[in-house]
């Protein structure tokens, strides 16, 4: 299976949206269109982010609830199989 291209340049995004590159840069700057700033002059727009934007998919803010657990969370649990931790 062929890999999809994973990012667009601002010019490519502008072309696909039929707007100017400046407009795309404004959308990036305002945060409406997520982008990765590789360097001060290089911006990449992840393809999934572009597709979500172009499709008008606006995420809805989700509510946060608290659940109780009977155990502590241990983020390093999986690593200790490699090297047992002794404290």
């Amino acid at each position: 299976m062929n890999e999809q291209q994973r990012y667009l340049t601002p010019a490519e995004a502008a072309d696909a949206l039929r707007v100017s590159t400046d407009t795309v840069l404004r959308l990036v700057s305002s945060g409406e269109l997520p982008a990765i700033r590789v360097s001060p002059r290089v911006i990449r727009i992840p393809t999934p982010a572009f597709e979500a934007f172009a499709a008008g998919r606006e995420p809805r803010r989700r509510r946060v609830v608290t659940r109780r657990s009977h155990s502590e969370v241990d983020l390093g649990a999986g690593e200790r199989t490699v090297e047992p931790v002794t404290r």
Partner: protein
Amino acid sequence: MRLTRAGLEDLLASLAELLERHGVALDLAAGEELALVESPSRSLSFELRGLLPDAHQPPRSVLELREVWQPSEAGDLERRDYAYELIDHERGYRRAFHLHDRDWFVDRFDVVVHEHCEQPIGRAPCDHVAGHPVRDGYRAVEMLMAIWVESVVPDCAALPCLEEFV
């Protein structure tokens, strides 16, 4: 990094929103609530996990953010641990940025944070890679997305291995 409980709830909702803006399909139904999990020691943790669209159906690239926050003496919450992960099954690598078991890592390697790099997945030239602290979950999303969009896979063997400095 410190937050009030309301600030932490806001962070979690904002991170979920940011991931969805990036096109990440979260492991949640539309409108499903996000959960902060409170442990017996009153620490609060969350896990956000989702798939990045790739050429496969269903997609196989996984992005995951996990954080643990503990009450501070000042009465607010401070981030104690984190694990930010990208597992790119399409290109066959894993990159991760971790902060956990702080005392053990300080004793053993004189560092607080570490990273992981596997390429192919499951095979790492080094168990723990030296790294820098990740400012927050927003920065983690930026870093992981920057790795994901790259056309070349990470060169794990070129990263500084903590075990070599012991």
